[in-house]
């Protein structure tokens, strides 16, 4: 990573927001960094209530069981990034966003995924877990997916966000994602459990310890300090959450 002299990263400590606010904060911070009003930023966050996020190009109705989400109080949001549908369990994962000028990263997209995912792999190392990057955008642990990541580049800014699975509730995941009823069989759950894993399944580390390791993994090569959002970012995020990310127009766009 190219670190311009004197650049200090702002780290937003682990927080919880609604799905709409989380995605709005990513956009508001990206805008502020693009305008040189905010430094490169690393966020850690959770989803309250639990939520489903879908990739920019995905069809809402094809991917999500909307009535089930409504019944279970699970929010649904479309991301600005491509990639697949993700169930973000409130207790079962930690999400990060890295937002910085594009020139600080390799121009090649896969190389930049690999670089950023390297921080997560280092974090796993601190928990005595050996994870690997699997192109395009996954991290695997003992041969199974433990982290999915998605990136966009707009106005000279790279935004990459991703989730690290701490626990895994496959049954709940299947109940909100659009897979046919017969697929939510024990056989299908077993098959997903063969492909997806979590920190909990491989380590006795707590969620706090995972967060601590992620913080260390991401900041090891950076000059950084904990910081807060600016008033302007917060106001913009509230506006975006209300006028974009929580709207039918945005979420049903495709």
């Amino acid at each position, binding site marked *: 990573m190219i670190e311009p002299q004197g650049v200090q990263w702002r780290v937003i400590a682990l927080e919880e927001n609604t799905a709409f606010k989380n995605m709005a904060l990513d956009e508001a911070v990206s805008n502020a960094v693009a305008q040189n009003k905010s430094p490169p930023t690393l966020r850690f966050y959770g989803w309250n209530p639990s939520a489903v996020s879908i*990739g*920019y*190009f995905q069809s809402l109705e094809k991917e999500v069981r909307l009535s089930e989400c409504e019944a279970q109080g699970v929010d649904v949001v479309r991301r600005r990034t491509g*990639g*697949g549908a993700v169930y973000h369990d409130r207790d079962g994962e930690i999400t990060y966003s890295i937002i910085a000028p594009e020139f600080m990263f390799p121009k090649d997209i896969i190389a930049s995924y690999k670089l950023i995912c390297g921080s997560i792999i280092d974090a796993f190392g601190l928990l005595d877990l050996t994870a690997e990057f699997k192109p395009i*955008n996954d991290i695997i642990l003992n041969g199974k997916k433990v982290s999915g990541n998605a990136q966009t580049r707009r106005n000279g800014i790279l935004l990459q966000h991703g989730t690290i699975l701490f626990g895994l509730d496959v049954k709940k995941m299947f109940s909100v994602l659009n897979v046919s009823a017969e697929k939510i069989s024990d056989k299908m759950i077993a098959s997903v459990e063969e492909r997806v894993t979590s920190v909990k399944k491989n380590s006795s580390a707590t969620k706090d310890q995972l967060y601590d390791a992620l913080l260390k993994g991401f900041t090891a090569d950076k000059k950084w300090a904990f910081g807060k959002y600016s008033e302007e970012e917060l106001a913009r995020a509230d506006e975006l959450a209300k006028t974009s990310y929580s709207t039918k127009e945005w979420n049903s766009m495709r």
Partner: protein
Amino acid sequence: MALHYSAVEKIKGGKTVSIDVWVENDLIAKVKLTGDFFMHPEEQINVLERVFEGAKVKFDWIELERKLMMAIQDNDIQLVGVGTGSILSVLRKASSGEPKND
């Protein structure tokens, strides 16, 4: 009334590309590409979809691929996890199938 065709393909490497095509009087009226692939800038997906509008159902595949590649080049579009070959192949699959009942 437009006839609606659709198809899905799982690309080698794990990404999925899905296409919905509406055909009116043997011409493509509308195309919608969906899936878990990546493309930068994201909003330009509409440019790619419009490449197919007005094309004949019995496509000239070489001409369509040329148009698609030109649209990608002219708009600085970067496809990740999906290529023009996969998009055309799923379009071919959809157009050779039976229309759906909308």
